[in-house]
């Protein structure tokens, strides 16, 4: 992916993602303290040599909590996206390849699902599922599905009329062969680009649900929940809301920038 690194946005995105993935992979190992440990003598403190990013209302080390919450936060984004993109792509490809009645019925249903504002849709699903990380992930995935299905369907449709597909049809290749060898590989680029950007949405929605008390539950170190729990104390120690809040922003921005850079690579026309 070296071409993605050439633009400044791609470079920044890549660097941010490297930081985030390092934190997600090694965070719990390099955290200086147990993220749940109370330091009763040091509640609601700003950064110090002992606690690099300060402490929360229980005197828990914010840096340790942040590092500990990184895998959960990143996995949430990736998991929800993979589920949503997977389901959406399958539906979209089937609709696009099958065409005709199947296609129009599927698209009607998807249009119906898209008639609800995204966050409202997620909120309803998750409050019906009962709150919790798994439920929130599922809700985000379901919300992503119709949009992804549309994108993959149109990718398939645009590929279907290209010369190489027509040529394969003329050669008398089987439908399955054409889909597997010609259509999918060429339709996959826009799906990947969209998916990368969606990860940032998923992370933001996941954190928002955590904040509203519908996602991760205490004593989880999920970043949105960290902001929610510390909200009552935000004026006494702004660090305990700022630290997880900015971490979410950095992660979302990393995926966003990287996704945009990928798009430029795959679709050079849009390269300004």
């Amino acid at each position: 992916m070296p071409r993605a690194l050439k633009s400044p946005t791609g470079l920044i995105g890549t660097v941010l993602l490297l930081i985030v993935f390092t934190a997600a992979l090694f965070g719990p190992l390099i955290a200086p303290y147990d993220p749940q440990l109370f330091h009763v003598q040091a509640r609601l403190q700003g950064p110090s040599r002992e606690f690099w990013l300060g402490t929360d209302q229980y005197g828990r080390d914010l840096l340790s909590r942040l590092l500990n919450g990184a895998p959960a936060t990143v996995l949430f984004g990736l998991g929800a996206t993979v589920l949503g993109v997977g389901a959406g792509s399958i539906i979209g490809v089937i609709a696009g390849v099958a065409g005709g009645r199947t296609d129009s019925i599927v698209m009607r249903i998807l249009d119906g699902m898209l008639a609800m504002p995204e966050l409202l849709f997620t909120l309803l699903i998750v409050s019906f599922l009962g709150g919790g990380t798994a439920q929130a992930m599922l809700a985000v995935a379901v919300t992503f599905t119709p949009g992804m299905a549309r994108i993959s369907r149109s990718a398939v449709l645009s590929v279907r009329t290209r010369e190489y597909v027509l040529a394969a049809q003329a050669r008398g290749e089987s439908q399955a062969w054409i889909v597997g060898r010609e259509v999918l590989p060429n339709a996959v680029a826009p799906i990947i680009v969209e998916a990368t950007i969606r990860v940032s949405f998923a992370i933001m929605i996941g954190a928002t649900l955590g904040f509203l008390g519908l996602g991760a539950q205490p004593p989880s170190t999920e970043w949105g929940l960290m902001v929610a729990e510390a909200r009552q104390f935000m004026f006494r120690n702004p660090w305990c809301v700022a630290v997880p809040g900015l971490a979410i922003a950095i992660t979302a921005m990393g995926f966003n920038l990287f996704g945009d850079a990928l798009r430029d690579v795959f679709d050079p026309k849009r390269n300004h």
Partner: protein
Amino acid sequence: MSLAYLLRRLGAVLIVLCVVSVTVFAITAVLPGNAALMILGENASAENLAAMERQLGLDRPVVVQYFDWISGVVQGDFGTSLRLQLPVSQVVGEAFWNSMSLAVIALVAVTLIAIPMGTFAALKRGSIWDLFIGLFSYVGTALPEFVTATLLLVFFAAPSRQYLPAGGFVAPGEDLSGFFVHAILPATTLGLILMAHISRQVRSELADVLSSDFVRAARLKGIPEGRVIRRHALPNSLTPAIAVISLDIGYLLGGIIVVEEIFAWPGLGRLLIYALQNRDLPVIQAVTLLLAVVYALSNLVADIVIAKLDPRVRYA
């Protein structure tokens, strides 16, 4: 755009609304607990619970409840809130206007700021300003509303330096300036993501148009640059901007839920969360349907506007 097309779109919206209402009803009925339990809380002895369920009509079969409700809705009666014991139309109506006022303030502010910003960035492409605006738009889209809101509160509403109220609402009829002062932080929070999004869109569209053949042709003809931009480039790049704004209304309707909750703005979002927590089904239904209708209508209006502005777009 034909009348038949419009009717078909509206018909589709209606079907979607029906499906949504049945789904919401069915799921809520299947879930453990109900509004009676939430009203009584830990006073919910079995006897009290049964009595409260009778009082609220929750002892009837779900299907009967649904048909009673839907037949009321068809006659314009959205029922009574289970938790607040007030007509749903009254509760939701007030909240609706409060939400809309906030959304409109945010949208107007965003449009007034984002379009010039995007234009400026496109004109000064490659400059430090362009980079700065681009960076801003990336940061803006990566900050969830609750983070923006919390940070704004820390900076502008901390008890030690109260530049702005930390939340709450003043009816515009009572105190117009108070109303706007209370709207500043929530509207800013709502607007930030949209501003980032729309300015980026305008910049990229305008940049496309500026490097297009017909703008180059216009320049070659010796038409002054200002006129080229005003008469040729901008109108062509605004269509996609409007499309983005209309799409963003869905985003706005989602964001408003969080923003109202944080800033205690008594609108639909806050009402929805209250109703969800209290299992107040008639209110959940009404708010959900209302938001879906607003979303669908704004999409439709956007489509019409785009079709008018851009003759290439045709709806069959």
